[in-house]
């Protein structure tokens, strides 16, 4: 247990009766926000189903050109980052400032690893002309004509997911500053809690995205 007493005092919003009401309102609001995220990614998964239904052979052929090793590594990296994020939330709840900071740094490092691997994957695809729409110009023979659609969907979905990882990294950095300043304690840790929820969602999206694009 950390010995430092929380010097920071969070002020409950003027329109809330108490801190409990504020916390439950914030958490409920955030869950609703997560619902919007699921619906937004949902659209991309529907489009995936439609095109896979329209061009089943092209889909499995093009899918073979994704790098399963890198995708698999990234899956492990993201799941690990979810673990460190959960531990960061736990540390914030139990007043362990140093542990909170440490786990947040670990989460940030894992997120960065994910982005670096993604960058390597993307550059390989660019290099081989495996691109969406009119940019589709595969160098190797035997790639299906409509592969442009597979890569269109692949880049849209992983791209939007990647943007969410980047956004997560920005808010985790913001959390890190607050955590280092000792603002979180067992009496107020709402931001860590909700960013944690967000981070798990980003992780979950990838867990669905990975088998659908890489493993079929």
């Amino acid at each position, binding site marked *: 247990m950390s010995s430092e007493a929380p010097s920071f005092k969070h002020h409950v919003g003027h329109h809330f009766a108490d801190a409990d009401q504020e916390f439950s309102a914030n958490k409920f609001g955030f869950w609703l926000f997560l619902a919007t995220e699921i619906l*937004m990614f949902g659209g991309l998964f529907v489009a995936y189903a439609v095109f896979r239904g329209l061009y089943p052979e092209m889909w499995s052929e093009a899918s073979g050109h994704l790098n399963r090793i890198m995708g698999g590594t990234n899956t492990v990296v993201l799941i690990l980052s979810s673990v460190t994020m959960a531990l960061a939330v736990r540390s914030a709840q139990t007043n362990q400032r140093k542990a909170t900071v440490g786990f947040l740094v670990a989460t940030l490092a894992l997120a960065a690893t994910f982005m670096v691997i993604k960058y390597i994957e993307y550059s390989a695809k660019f290099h081989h002309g495996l691109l969406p729409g009119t940019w589709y110009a595969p160098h190797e023979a035997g790639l299906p004509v409509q592969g442009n659609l597979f890569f269109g969907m692949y880049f849209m979905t992983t791209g939007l997911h990647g943007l969410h990882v980047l956004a997560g990294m920005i808010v985790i950095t913001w959390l890190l500053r607050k955590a280092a300043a000792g603002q979180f304690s067992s009496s107020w840790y709402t931001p860590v809690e909700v960013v944690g929820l967000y981070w798990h969602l980003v992780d979950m999206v990838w867990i669905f995205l990975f088998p659908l694009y890489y493993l079929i």
Partner: protein
Amino acid sequence: MASNAAAAATAERPNYLNVSHGLKSWLGTSDHKRIGVMYLYSILAAFCLGGLLALGIRLELFHTGRTIVDEKTYNQMFTLHGIIMIFLFIIPSIPAALGNFFLPIMIGAKDVAFPRLNLASYYLWIAGAVLTLVAVVTGGIDTGWTFYTPQSIRQDSSVIWMGLGIFILGFSSIFTGLNFLVTMHKLRIKGMGWFDMPLFCWAIYGTAMIQILATPVLAITLLLLLAEKLFQVGIFNPALGGDPVLFQHFFWFYSHPAVYIMILPGMGIISETITTYSRRHIFGYRFITFSSIAIAVLGFLVWGHHMFVTAESEFSSMIFSFLTFFVAIPSAIKIFNWTATLYKGSIVLTTSMLYSLAFIFLFSIGGLTGMFLGALSVDIHLHDTYFVVAHFHYVMMGGTVMAFLAGLYHWRPKMTGRMYPETPSRIAAVLVFIGFNVTFLTQFVLGSKGMPRRYYDYLEQFQPLNQMSTVGSWILGLGFLIAFSSLIWSLKNGRKADRNPWGSAGMEWRTATPPPLENFEGEPVFEYGPYDYEIMYAKKERQGE
């Protein structure tokens, strides 16, 4: 109570309007009432702009051939009219302006759950409006408000600005809905159970469900459209193997539920005004609450009825048609309950009540003509004709706009502290009602005779009815001119409004006019429900009022 009344008598009593001054105190406010007022004037500006475009469209159709503008401009005008009216006016209109101001007060809360998010939603609206104007300046688009591909991909760069603008407006709408949902869940006054909540709040609840669950799909649709335009991804482009009908599915998966985002809050207002101006408890409270939720849920299951004449399979069309008829049930439940509320009520024909009765009448016509369009065989004939235009305007303008005006006249005294002049307002209401029917009833006839919508020119034989419709639009315009100018006049010159000018039982009429910063003087107490007129009268009698 007595000291409150005495305080109300003095002019300098602190309220949300005089608590601070200057532009900065408004632009940076987190008070839901001020945000509601800012929203109100912004959406009214959008309404006037969209209305002027509508007058222009009708004027162009006065004669066959060219009357005032060329084909391209005409196409851009009706596109812009649709986009402004739908995304800038009608979607935010009732929830973000009137709902923002009154929902927290009606449930006895001091503010919405997330005041800063509320302000952010207003600024997103502004950003969306600015981007829409940028799209106009950079050349405008002529796809109609539906952005169907591949036509929208062939537009020049202005479609990017327009798409981005509506993407941002979507977030503004999501933030509003999310905020209200949490507010209703967490901030209801002690003692107010779910089924003590005013029906306006229940309607907003259903609306918020749709805003949260449907709008993200519009967001991804527009993102894909932008990607299509910027990077030629091919997903909606048939030339690259993509599927343009997928765009329609995506678009209507949002835009059909969105018409319930537009109409549900209006239905909520009617439940408030009908009870107030007939001094009766609402008939069938629970049926109305559940019908709001039923509309919100069923609204998600009928999008395919916009696509009966596309590549949609006959089987799915049949299912969508069946489900479409299903939506009529909760809507009819509301109409019947409102009329039952009027029965044996002591009806006062204020301006607000006139608009409410107009709503019931016009929305019934709009709803019933929706049945024509939901029937597969009839739709083949009526699809993309003026019948659709008339139906849509009967539900959106005859429905939502009438309800919005009913709510505006009902609540304005509370918002501004001034009464509006009753006589000119009533004359305006009658003019609006007549003008509306002359404009759009003729369009049902035009449509059933086969005049296609969105066309720049028409056959000679349609000219008399088109001219009648255009004359109707002038009467409508005159009605709005009288209505708005008398409202502006009353801002300074209106009689001072007291606490409860209509004798309503709602929570919002138990606080001062205009309300103080945190909505109530002292801690509010929940004494009786929003429609408990008998309890209210009994209480007043005991107090000797």
